[in-house]
């Protein structure tokens, strides 16, 4: 009789190449996604040491962080060069490094190009039970398909390129169990914001989270990706959802997923990837789904979450002295006053996109609210940035692009865009954005930019009302 194990322990155990007495193990990495921002120094390191990429076949490179979201080809089909010389140099470095090291590369003008965490699942590169890394903290997203996926730094990118392994110590395990069903009008984004608000931005530090409960079993892969994506905002390096028939149906037939007899063998293995009855988590948190409302952030940490029906909290109401100080600074930066109802906060910018919320269901949810409506006069800019070229094409086939454009949105090319303000899409200093992205940090969407994290439907509600608004009043 083997000991009951959690899903995390099963995936970990299956990937141990070498175990040292001090607890550090060499862990095999099944999948490595590479993008232009965190890889140039890693390839340079390989070059200087005369090392090769050990498993280019398990590696996939795509540019996403830096690429402009404006047209990439001119009327004659020629590529439009990136105006910013540094961004261009970084993109060109990836374009040189990928073929030089034999790494498969999806170029900025390929229909399959998009945000690493959107194209991984979309191409079937992400598989259940895999270990998966990328030089990007939102790699946690792929845990939605039951992959043990986490972000790494550039030195680790180089380590994985050279050895296809990482030296790691096992994390602790944490269960986030959500009981009951979400109320009507409440989305996966609202749920994950609520969870982060409950456990805090460091609540999952040192842990790998597994999300459990009927809510997740009934959730689409797109919804699960939104949940797992933001695990890192609660400090957890990875977040897992056990793979099930929804996962298998999503993956079947994807270009890079197993085919034929391989597929059957893979599914048989994936069905074993569940936390055993009686397995023990190091930490357990229970959330009541009925408590979740459409959620909005008010401050500069993703833990600063309130329901849209609430008010801006009073910094003095926090027990912890450092939290009081942080809240005072946050409100000053955000230009907000304690006690103001959230629904009275005016916004000037709307961003629908990012690896958290740029998939087809996200665009549908926003379009549902926008249909037959127009952006409020106070809205200065409203961007929709689909997560990939394929998401964009599907949305266009469904006519979603017309709904966005008629409402007053700009329909853009795929990339990370205004989530992190690396490309030209930024929120001006002192101005306020309702954003479907994942971080409301100081300066995240551009120097001085003020970010309120919301779901796609809530971003659409903010667009048509010109303020933070409860989408349930619009549907």
């Amino acid at each position, binding site marked *: 009789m083997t000991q009951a194990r959690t899903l995390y322990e099963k995936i970990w155990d299956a990937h141990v190449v*070498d175990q*040292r007495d001090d607890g550090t193990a*060499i862990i095999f990495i099944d*999948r490595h996604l590479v993008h232009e*921002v965190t890889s*140039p120094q890693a390839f*340079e390191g390989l070059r200087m040491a005369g*090392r090769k990429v*050990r*498993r280019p076949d398990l590696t*996939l490179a795509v540019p996403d*962080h*830096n690429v402009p979201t404006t047209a990439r080809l001119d009327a004659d089909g020629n590529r439009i060069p990136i105006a910013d010389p*540094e961004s261009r*140099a*970084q993109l060109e470095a990836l374009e040189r490094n990928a073929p030089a090291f034999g790494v498969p*590369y999806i170029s900025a003008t390929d229909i*399959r190009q998009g945000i690493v965490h959107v194209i991984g699942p979309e191409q079937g*590169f992400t*598989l259940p039970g895999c270990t998966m890394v990328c*030089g*990007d*903290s939102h*790699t946690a997203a792929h845990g939605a398909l039951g992959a043990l996926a*986490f*972000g790494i*730094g*550039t*030195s*680790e990118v180089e*380590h994985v390129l*050279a*050895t*296809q*392994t990482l*030296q790691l110590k096992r*994390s602790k395990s944490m269960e986030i169990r959500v009981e009951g069903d979400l109320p009507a009008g409440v989305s996966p984004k609202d749920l994950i914001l609520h969870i982060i608000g409950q456990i805090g*931005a*460091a609540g999952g*530090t040192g842990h790998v989270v597994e999300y459990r409960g009927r809510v997740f079993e009934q959730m689409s892969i797109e919804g699960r990706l939104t949940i797992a994506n933001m695990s890192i*905002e609660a*400090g957890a*390096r990875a977040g897992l959802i056990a793979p099930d028939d929804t996962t298998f149906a999503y993956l079947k037939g994807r*270009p*890079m997923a197993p*085919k034929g007899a391989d597929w059957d*063998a893979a599914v048989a293995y994936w069905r074993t990837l569940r936390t055993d009855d009686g397995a023990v988590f190091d930490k357990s948190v229970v959330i009541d789904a009925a408590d979740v409302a459409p959620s909005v952030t008010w401050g500069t940490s993703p*833990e600063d979450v309130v329901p849209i029906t609430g008010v801006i909290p009073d910094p003095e109401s926090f027990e912890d002295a450092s*939290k009081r*100080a*942080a809240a005072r600074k946050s409100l000053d930066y955000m230009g907000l006053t304690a006690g103001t109802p959230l629904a009275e906060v005016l916004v000037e910018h709307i961003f629908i996109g990012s690896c958290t919320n740029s998939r087809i269901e996200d665009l549908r949810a926003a379009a549902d609210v926008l249909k037959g409506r127009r952006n409020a006069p106070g809205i200065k800019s409203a961007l929709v940035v689909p997560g990939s070229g394929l998401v964009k094409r599907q949305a266009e086939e469904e006519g979603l692009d017309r709904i966005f454009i008629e409402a007053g949105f700009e329909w853009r090319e795929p990339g990370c865009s205004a989530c*992190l*303000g*690396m490309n030209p899409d930024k929120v001006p200093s002192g101005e306020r954005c309702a954003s479907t992205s994942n*971080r409301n*940090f*100081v*300066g*995240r969407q551009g*120097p001085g930019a003020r970010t309120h994290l919301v779901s796609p439907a809530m971003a659409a509600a903010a667009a048509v009302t010109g303020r933070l608004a409860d989408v349930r009043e619009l549907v």
Partner: protein
Amino acid sequence: MQPIDRVEGRAIPFGRKNVDTDIIIPAQWLKTISREGLGKGAFETVRAEPDNVFDNPEFAGAPILIAGDNFGCGSSREHAAWALTDLGITAVIAPSFSDIFSSNAFKNGILTVVLPQEAVDRLMEVAATDPIHVDLESQTVTTPFQDRFTFEIDPFRKTCLLQGLDEIGLTLAKTDAISAYEAKLASEKPWLVPAAA
């Protein structure tokens, strides 16, 4: 990696909690293809504040930084560690660190020292006027006022830091084990290799 056994000198009493890596180095500085020169952009938004500790001449060249809970949260950008190195910071003391940042710091020979909040509060007081001494071998932080705090560190990381070991080189020494794992994988899970992109 440069070996490191002790860090001694003034400490910047920053003290803030949830300092994310966007604060340590904003995104506009990430367009570089080099590890060098990122100190210019370090803590840019904090340095825009009047009377910030980073521009206080008292702390110019200080090798230690003291921060609050959850230091280095958010983005995995190793540029945050490179920026600290460029500022001359080789040790950060805080009640807790994000997992990714502490790993990145370690790979760059920056010591992350976890101490309880009370100890950090005391060191913040001392740092205002006096130097602090961090000793890796004995795992202690001491002050000129007889304060002595001990900290935990992973033994493997400690050895690597003390000896300045190249982790990739260490792993490559296990190439046979990696090859054996790959051979097993190829026979047991042949479906794992993706179809070409």
